[in-house]
Structure formats: C-alpha cells, structure tokens
C-alpha cells in the first residue's frame, strides 16, 4: 500500500498561478445574474440543487425562464413554475419522486400556461455534450416512433451515413443545448473558484456547455482542489465558473450527497400545501420571502 498511498497523494501544487478570481457574491447577487428569459439549466433532486438560489430567483421575480432539467427536474421546477417564473419547460420529467405528483407543474400543464418541450434523458445529455464539444448537433439511437419526436420540430431524422445495411437506418439528430445559465449547488469550492462535485458529473457537463455558470456552495476550502488528484478528478476548474455564493444548507429542503439528507417532512408538507395556488403563495410567503 505504500505505492497506493503515493498514487493518491500527489501533493505538488499547481505551478502557474492563475490568479483570476471568480467573484464571490451573496445568493441574491448570484440570482440577479439570471436575466429574464434566460435558458436556465438545473440538475435533478438527486444531484446538487441550488435551492437557496431558486428562492432568491423567485424573490427577485425572474420571468419567462426556459427551464432545462438535466435531464429532469424536481422541486426547483415545481416552485419556479408555481411562482410564474417559467415560460418553457424542457425536461425528461418533472418529478417529486416518492412525494407524488408535482402540484404546480400539473396545474400549469392543465391551464396551458406552460410551453412544454417534453424530452428524454439521453437527449438532454447529448444536447449538452454537443454544446460542450461546440458542435451544432449530436446523433442518438432510440427515440424513433416516440411522440416526443412528433412534438419536437428541432429533432431531425436522417439516414445513418455510416450504415452497413441495405435498408435505411434512420437515426435521430438533436440540436446542441447551450444554456444561458447553469445553476447548481456543490459541497466545496476553493479560493480560486474551482468547484468540487465528486461523481455528480452532469454538473461538469452543464458548466462546460453553459455560457454562464452560477454555483452555490456549502463552504470554501483554503486548499487548492486541483493540487490533489483525488479531489481534482471531481472538480470543475474555475475557468468554467462565473460566480459563487456561499450558502450553507443551500440545497435544503432537498438533500446534498455526502452532506445531508432531504428534509422529508418539509418536502411532504410542500406537496400538500402547494396543492392549491393559494397554498403555494402561503408557502412562498413563509419560506421564500420577497
């Protein structure tokens, strides 16, 4: 295990000082960076949700968001929709999981006030990867014959130029998804603005793909996250990070992997209270403010 220990204890810190500072802001300043009408990408409840920033967005009354779930979205989506912040919802699902149907989402769908771009998980991942690679589209298997394809005029079907078969081999092409803003929550950042996300690598693709990446974190570390390969392997370099806000318990009431579990009773209560628009308004009064 001597060798093993050496292997994971690289130790030497980076030699070139990239002193470019990523601005550190309050959660409201962070939210102020999301313009009305922005295409905003957010992760699912099992990843890193910047719930404090979502509340700040609602407080500031952001409008007409094009919300993208990467690849699906949970409480963030229901709350933003309930607060009237969302014009378009592009996601593989809006799910509150075990807590049951998402009340404000279901209500908005029925009222027709939400433009739906129903998608499927790998399409959203592939769209972000296309943006990450700077290509206009990405091919993907599957999806053919789904009504999702019928509803989406931005998805194309071509005959696979590399087919080995005599008959046509239709394959779907999907446009790049390049969010104006990626917004998420992580456990740690260092003073240079590098953000540790561990295995929640969809957050890294989001940051690579988006024009602006806003991150709330539990806490700063004074260490250099890129100096130790153990941490560097799960770190988004500061290059991709536009601004950071410190927000302890910033994912509450959703959980944060490795830090804290979801506040199940609060989430259950949300679902009950938000069953009506009036109940949701009371919830906002109590927990969001503004």
């Amino acid at each position, binding site marked *: 295990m001597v060798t093993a220990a050496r292997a994971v204890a690289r130790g030497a810190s980076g030699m070139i000082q990239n002193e470019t500072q990523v601005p550190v802001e309050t959660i409201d300043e962070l939210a102020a960076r999301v313009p009305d009408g922005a295409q905003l990408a957010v992760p699912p409840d099992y990843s890193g949700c910047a719930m404090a920033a979502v509340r700040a967005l609602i407080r500031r009354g952001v409008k007409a968001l094009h919300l993208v779930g990467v690849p699906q979205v949970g409480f963030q989506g229901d709350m933003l929709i309930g607060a009237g912040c969302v014009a378009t919802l592009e996601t593989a699902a809006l799910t509150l999981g075990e807590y049951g149907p998402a009340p404000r989402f279901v209500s908005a769908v029925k009222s027709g006030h939400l433009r739906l771009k129903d998608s499927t998980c790998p399409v959203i991942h592939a769209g972000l990867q296309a943006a990450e690679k700077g290509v206009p589209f990405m091919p993907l298997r*599957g999806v053919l014959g789904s009504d999702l394809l019928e509803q989406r005029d931005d998805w194309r079907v071509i005959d696979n130029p590399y087919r080995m078969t005599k008959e046509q081999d239709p394959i779907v092409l999907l446009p790049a998804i390049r969010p104006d803003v990626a917004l998420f929550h992580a456990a740690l950042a260092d003073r240079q603005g590098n953000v540790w996300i561990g295995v929640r690598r969809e957050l890294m693709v989001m940051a690579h793909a988006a024009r602006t990446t806003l991150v709330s974190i539990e806490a700063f570390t004074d260490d250099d996250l890129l100096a130790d390969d153990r941490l560097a392997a799960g770190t988004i370099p500061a290059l991709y990070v536009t601004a950071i806000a410190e927000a302890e318990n910033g994912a509450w009431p959703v959980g944060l992997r490795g830090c804290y579990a979801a506040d199940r009773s609060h989430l259950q209560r949300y679902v009950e209270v938000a069953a009506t628009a009036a109940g949701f308004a009371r919830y906002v009064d109590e927990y969001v403010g503004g």
Partner: protein
Amino acid sequence: MSMSVGSTPQDGSTAIDWRAEELLVATIADMLEGVRHVAVGASSPIPGAAALLAQQRAGGRMRVSVLGSERDNFFTDGARELFDCAAQGRIDAFFLGGGQIDGAANINLVGIGAYPRSRVRFPGSFGSAYLYFLVPRVILFRVEHSPRVLVPRVDFVSAPGTSPEHYYRPGGPYALVTGRCIFLFDKERRRFRLASVHPGHTLAEIREQTGFDFDSPEAVPQTAVPTRKTLDEIRHVIATKIARTYPAFAAHLFDGVPGGTG
C-alpha cells in the same frame, strides 16, 4: 395499492404463506436468469428486490445498479452513464412502467388527454424512449391492472413497443408483469400473450380488466407461487439488502413476517 397474502399448498409439501409482493419478486427474478447486468429505478422496490434475488441466485455474478440511489450505483460518469452504458450493450435488463400501456407495448409516461394540455399529467418520459430501444430485456411492471392503465391505445407514445424491422433496435419489451398476471410479448405478432395468471385471479377477470386485446393459450397456467427456498432467500438473505436499499418497502413487506428483517 394493497396486496394480499396467499396460502398455497405446494406439490407434496405443506402449505406456506406468501405475500403478493413475494410472488412478484420471485416471478421477476426468474425472468432475470442469465442476465449480467440489470438496472433498476430507485423507487422500484419490487423489481429491485427481484434483481437482488436473481443476483443472489447467480452467486453474485450479476451486477445490479439502482438508479438515482446514492449508494447502490457504481456509475462515475454522471447521469448520462446509464444511457451510454445501455448503448454499449452493457445493460441486459431494465424495468419500465407506464401511466398507460397498450397492447402493442407502447408506454405513456406523459399524460392522459390531448398533449400538451394533458387532463392527467405524469412526470414525463425519463429515459424510456431510449432504453426501450437499447436494453434487450425490458420488463414492463405495473401492479395496477385495470382498463385505466392497460388501454387499447396510449394517448401519448413515450416509447414505442415495436419498430419497423430495419430500425436499429437491439432492445424492447420482454414481459408485462401486473398484480393479476404475466404477459409475455410476442415480437413476431407484436402483441402480448398471456403467460400465467396469479393465484386468486381468473382469465375472465383479466379480460375484463385489460383494455387491450391479447393472445391466450387454451389452458392458462397459474403463476408459480414462490417455493419455500425462494421465500427463505427473500426473507433471510434479500431482506437485509432490501431494507438498506428500499427501507420503506422493507418495513411494509416484512412487518410481521418471521425473519423478514433478518
């Protein structure tokens, strides 16, 4: 949903008690024989328990990934890895549900009524439109077996059950398991064939509760009830794992069953 507890005499043995969930777990585990890697949703305790049982029977030589779980998921490349992994041919079995399922194995996870203003809106299609094409053995699982769920034609095709012959589609439906019966999907005829009826249910009832037409053998067998060995495995070995992976389910299932929380 609530499920019954059965007491069925087995060939030559004394009667043993089993729960409906145990029957489903055992049945689905049988369908996973020979599978190298099965992926299961985090909120799918019955398929999850079945996967664990199949893994146990395979002497551990089967991988089980529980999606969305922080703990029972060995993926390290983010949320996209499941889908890439399936496309690489490394996932042999997967489970899908459906707000509606029709007789051609089309599934609807979007909503009831005309899209987009669905009268009843479900969460969405998740990865179904993809995994249904790429995972060879997709088991449709829905306990509720009613004309509301099993419809002549789904209102929205999240993922189609079948595709034209020349499409690239290594995957597709293998079976539909409900609280009343097991259908196997006939790829040639592109429709379901009733394989067995769970103890306590009848063909007539199934015809009545199924909104789509399906094939049926002349004599419909009864779904095999779990053997004592299987029940022992579930209650004494799998229960521990289930409790860690699906705590709420385990609490419900094994409440009062001797050895259940082993």
